[in-house]
């Protein structure tokens, strides 16, 4: 499972970087989304994968018993997803405004003046 995760994360990072290096702003934003999700998966992997054991505690007992998933990476990812979502929304708004002003999606066509 770890191996599959690693490969998927690698592919997502590669795809993200590739998209970032394109000239189109839409692809730039897609690249950012890819990088963000790859990072989220990386956190999940680094925190340790535990399949089929949710982070629940038996009712009545104050301690965890047996094998449970670590809830902290999941909490971190949840926060990161929310933040990433907000930033993507802002990036899309910025892109739209950029397109309105310059009439192009191509970053290289635009120069400062």
């Amino acid at each position, binding site marked *: 499972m770890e191996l599959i995760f690693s490969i998927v994360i690698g592919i997502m990072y590669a795809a993200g970087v590739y998209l*970032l290096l394109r000239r189109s*702003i839409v692809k*730039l934003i897609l690249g*950012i989304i890819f*990088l*963000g999700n790859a*990072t989220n998966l*990386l*956190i*999940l*992997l*680094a*925190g*340790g994968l535990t399949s089929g054991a949710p982070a629940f505690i038996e009712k009545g007992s104050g301690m965890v018993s047996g094998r449970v998933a670590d809830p*902290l*990476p999941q909490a*971190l990812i949840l*926060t*990161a997803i929310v*933040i990433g979502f*907000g*930033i993507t929304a*802002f*990036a899309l708004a*910025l*892109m739209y*405004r*950029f397109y309105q*002003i*310059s009439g192009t999606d191509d*970053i290289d066509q*635009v*120069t*400062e*003046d």
Partner: protein
Amino acid sequence: MISLILLPVLIPFATFILLLFFRRAVAINQFFAILGALVQLVVSLLILFRVSDQGILVTQLGNWPAPYGITVVADLFSAIMLVMSGLIGLSISIYSVSGLNKNYHKGSFYPLMSVLLMGVNGAFLTGDVFNLYVWFEVLIIASFALLTLGGSKAQMYGGLKYMTINLISSMIFLAAIGLLYGKTGTLNIADLALRMRETESSGMIATTGMLFFIAFGIKAALFPFFFWLPASYHTPPVTITALFSGLMTKVGIYAMIRFFTMIFVQDQQLWQHLLLTIGGLTMVIGVLTAASQYDIRRILSFHIISQIGYMVVGLGLFTVSGVAGAIYFLAHNIITKTNTFLVAGIVNHIKGSFDLKAIGGLYRSHPFIALFMFIPMAGLAGVPPLSGFFGKLLLIIAGFEAHQWLITGVAVLVSLFTMFSMIKIWNEGFWKKQPVTAAVNNKEKVPYTMLLPVIVLALLTIILGVAAEPFINLSTRAADQLINPAEYIQAVLRRSS
């Protein structure tokens, strides 16, 4: 009861909410923004005195014990930075009353500034690595919006670069947090400091440290990662640039100092070489590019980079005196750098241009203003007895003590070039005659709301220099707390060992 150290986060948040109710009423907006900033400064000073007297202040949110809950902690370094952020917040909110045009006041400038201050203060106060990330995001989202608030083409262009680079830096930061958690199983800074002193150095730790270094390096605009800064910082109005120059890159440096003194202590040899090299290159390249520019804002923007180099060199020495120099320099730089941008705003207000080729003769027409513009520039260049002189002196002495001759020599040399670029602004803008060919709109009067922050900050530059000793002592104590974090660890984790 709400703990004192939560107030620097809660006050800007309350200001933000309050301001949202009065979005169209500019005067009310300004009043509450200034009031909020003032209260925040007072609270920060209170925290500084309290920390200085009674030691490190800690609050555990929701009363969860230390490594599990969210820790808010103020040591001396945090407290010093909080005072700086309060000071800059107050100066900018006063200056912006007449330093920004009305469209910006209606376009949510003050609420966004409150969010920015909240993010900055949160980053200074948090005792948890992941919360640091969250606060970083809060402040960069506010800064994206501030940067692109005007909606001009140049701003969109600068904003796009700024946003992309900062997002990449955040993702590297986040990935590093994931790896750090995977390796150590904790994200509490005090707990990390404790555990990292017990664990052996390994490839995983070095990699994680490097990822943190790159993430903070991008935020602080260090040498190979600085190109976003000159590409974006001159696009918004100078008031907003002044706010950014005072706070944004400095949060990156703050995080770097905290991490590399407290957490990544295994491979200090490696980090020392890296930080000194990068710091040196940052200083040299920043100052050389600054000297070649003719727009005041661009000169000052490249200058931010060069000055960041000094702080990194101070950190790279890894001695108490080196880090103390870095902290003193950081505080001096926040005050002086913001002030030079505010001065540039006044020049623009009088002459209607930032281009040094088009302006001149300010010394003759506005001698009093010229004096208060000379002070921050001379302070930045390091003329004794102003604050920049002592900042550099501390770093140079620390460099000699650590036997780092080369980097100390570079620091002295860069100081000369800094002087050169400041003299350039002075000569072109103030000394030479007004060029007759250029059409400029001469305004005689400068509003007092623009002058007041400039004068106060200039006086602080003098005070930091003339009465340097208490400030140097304070920085030394703050550096000592960072290099020997036993007190910090004990305050947060409450272990009785």
